């Protein structure tokens, strides 16, 4: 088998394995609860019968591993089980139905952010690396160091204050529904997207700059210079083919960071995404929803890192052209 294919398959296998371990961790965290979930929910006053009935209704009376396989089997088919919020009532809600529209909204926001942020920060980072120690580089460096340190909610409220309350360019709350038209959705998601962009552009461009400077300092770049290759051509021909791996790592790292930022930004702008859903479910202790959200976030995270690794593998000349 070609080493590239073999390495990619190994990496994919490792990704799947990690996902399985993560699902076990997420599932079993609930089992760690001292006294059990049902007792905790119902309080100390509950009689054993109430607890037993409650457990039976939720299927908590069967062994943990059986429930795990049922859960993970369902997840594989897109069935995350039933939400606890409707337990006992007639309007029992499927977790998948609760999550689906929220997931769409979150991906909408994340993709919108990525479309703006990735090209922007790569461009800014490359410029800072090429013209390092210029006034441009210094300013960008100071600004980004400050932005990185500032928490998401400060940036979010500042933007809200300026763009929504002072200048009234955008709505201060990003309420969207399933019937919201696409462009309306875009308009309402603009402020959260700008916030997230600001947050990750700082990170991403600093990392791009560092990775590129590292690359430009390699002996073969000096060699290219001493062969009379002009700087621009040296970068395109000599640096770029070796830059895919570090760039992919930077992009994946920051998109993964987006996963966390999205939770806070959604809450600030009351944007109905999966982050806000998770926070609400944590407050109401709706565990199936919490677990489903956690699994989705973790899977996204793993997938992003996996893609970066795959890019690194398939652009590595040592693997592409084995001895």
């Amino acid at each position: 088998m070609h080493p590239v294919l073999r390495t990619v398959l190994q990496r994919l296998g490792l990704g799947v394995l990690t996902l399985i371990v993560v699902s076990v961790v997420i599932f079993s965290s609930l089992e760690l609860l001292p006294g059990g979930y049902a007792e905790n929910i119902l309080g100390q006053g509950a009689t054993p019968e109430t607890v037993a009935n409650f457990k039976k209704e939720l299927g908590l009376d069967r062994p943990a591993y059986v429930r795990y396989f049922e859960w993970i089997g369902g997840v594989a088919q897109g069935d995350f089980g039933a939400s606890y919020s409707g337990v006992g009532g007639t309007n029992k809600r499927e977790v998948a139905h609760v999550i689906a529209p929220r997931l769409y909204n979150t991906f909408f926001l994340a993709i919108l952010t990525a479309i703006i942020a990735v090209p922007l920060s790569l461009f800014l980072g490359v410029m800072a690396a090429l013209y390092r120690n210029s006034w441009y580089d210094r300013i960008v460096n100071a600004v980004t160091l400050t932005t990185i340190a500032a928490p998401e909610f400060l940036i979010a409220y500042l933007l809200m204050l300026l763009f929504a309350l002072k200048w009234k360019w955008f709505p201060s709350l990003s309420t969207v529904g399933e019937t919201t038209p696409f462009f309306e959705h875009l308009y309402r998601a603009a402020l959260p997207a700008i916030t997230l962009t600001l947050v990750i552009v700082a990170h991403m461009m600093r990392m791009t700059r560092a990775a590129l400077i590292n690359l430009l300092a390699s002996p073969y770049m000096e060699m290219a210079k001493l062969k009379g290759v002009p700087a621009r051509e040296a970068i395109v021909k000599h640096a770029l083919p070796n830059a895919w791996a570090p760039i992919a790592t930077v992009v994946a790292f920051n998109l993964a960071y987006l996963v966390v930022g999205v939770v806070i930004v959604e809450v600030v702008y009351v944007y109905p995404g999966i982050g806000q859903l998770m926070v609400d479910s944590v407050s109401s202790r709706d565990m199936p929803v919490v677990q489903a959200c956690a699994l989705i976030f973790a899977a996204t995270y793993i997938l992003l890192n996996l893609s970066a690794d795959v890019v690194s593998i398939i652009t590595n000349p040592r693997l592409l052209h084995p001895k």
Partner: protein
Amino acid sequence: MSTDNKRVKGETVLEIRDLKIEGNSDGVWHPIVKGVDVTLKRGEVLGLIGESGAGKSTIGLAAMGFARPGCRIVGGTIMFDGIDLRKASEAQKRDLWGSRIAYVAQSAAAAFNPAHTLIDQTVETAVRHGIMTREQAEADARDLYKRLQLPKPDTIGDRFPHQVSGGQLQRAMTAMAMACRPDLIIFDEPTTALDVTTQVEVLAAMRDIVEQFNTAAIYITHDLAVVAQMADRIMVLLRGKEVEQAPTRQMLKQPTQDYTKTLWAVRKLAKEESISDDIALRVHNVDASYGGMVKVLDNVTVQLPRGRTVAVVGESGSGKSTLARAITGLLPPMKGEVYFNGKPLPKALKDRDKDTLRRIQMIYQSADTSLNPRQTIRDLIGRPIEFYHGIKGAACDRAVAELLDAIELNESYIDRLPGELSGGQKQRISIARALAAKPEIIICDEVTSALDQIVQEEILTLLMKLQKETNVSYLFITHDIATVRAISDEIVVMHQGKVVQQGPKTKVLNPPYPAYTELLLSSVPEMDPDWLTNLLAKRAKGKVKA
């Protein structure tokens, strides 16, 4: 080629006057080249020689009008064929670089771009500068590969840098430098990273091609014997200044300056050979491997007589450092025994008692990594005294001071950290630390390889003096034959995990040789400027015979 008519020997190609270069460390600029003149005629090879910090690489690059980041050219003129490189624009320099002045870097593995094939990188300059079409350039590159005696010259260019060996890569880089038939090539320590047997071929190929095309060259190295083969003229540098300059033969025969004489002197150090039957350590039929199938040591038997020095010599991958690990118990042998004073040593380190550990000490190649940078000299040398002999406090300090005297430092060093000492001083501290245990055997693993020649000599002299005083035995691992000559009583030659030969120094270093010993010994450059020519002639004859 259009420039052919310009290549007349005797015409000056490069003229550097009063070159001054500064380097930046900790934000402060300080001089590293202090007014150096270089004149180079067409077809002439100038050897720049000096120890680390002499500024030879910096001068080499300055000859191209280039200063590395962190360096700046602050004074003097650099005239290349009538062009003032200090005043030339970047664009002008780009036109010269690669086409009329070329550079061959020390590490070809790092200087080749891993993402492109050799031939792509070889032809890049010629095609870029519009000197040849891609097809012409490729044909020419294959021709150059052939001239440089690369294997399969027609197809080797399609390979990627990581797919060929270090020696081949260095020759490919020479081909790349030659692609435009430059007027001047800067060779920056091109063979330093290579093993001696590989070095011969590379040196021969480089010298040949420079002669064939009558190219002027600056050959930078710290190795006198190498520069003697390559250069028509030698310039000796010390701390950014020229010490002296003369044609190669004259320089070798009659150096005029004291510093040059000391550089030459190291080659003359030689221990009187002394044989003994009192065996302190015997490695018997030992096999060892790092978990894999490949045996790094294959049935190795070595004897170390008491109070004597056995030099273990071999190239990289010969297993000589693994031998040290097997003896010390860091890598327990899979087969065989190590006998110490006639009794077998426990194989693994953890099974040996404190007194056994005390008797076998080790000194490493690099004092930078073998001395804890956060411990003072007092801690470093005092610890074995306290640990093995239970001496503490003022008595321990006194013992440390005595040891410092023994290694020709003094007690004023006792509170210093290793970072405050020079390379040679640090290696002395390592020696003192080993001595502090009062060992019977010291394993020296390439202890002088990282040092400049003059410092090497001092360390070797010190080791011999200490041997006389304490009757300690040295197992001296090295790849450098000059060091072997200087220090050993007996020699073990290793190759690919096997012992090729063990015997008294005079026997091993004189014929008849086993095949590998002969190859190894004959590959070690000698100060004779005709050495390479004679060797190649001899080898060619041998081949014809075979």
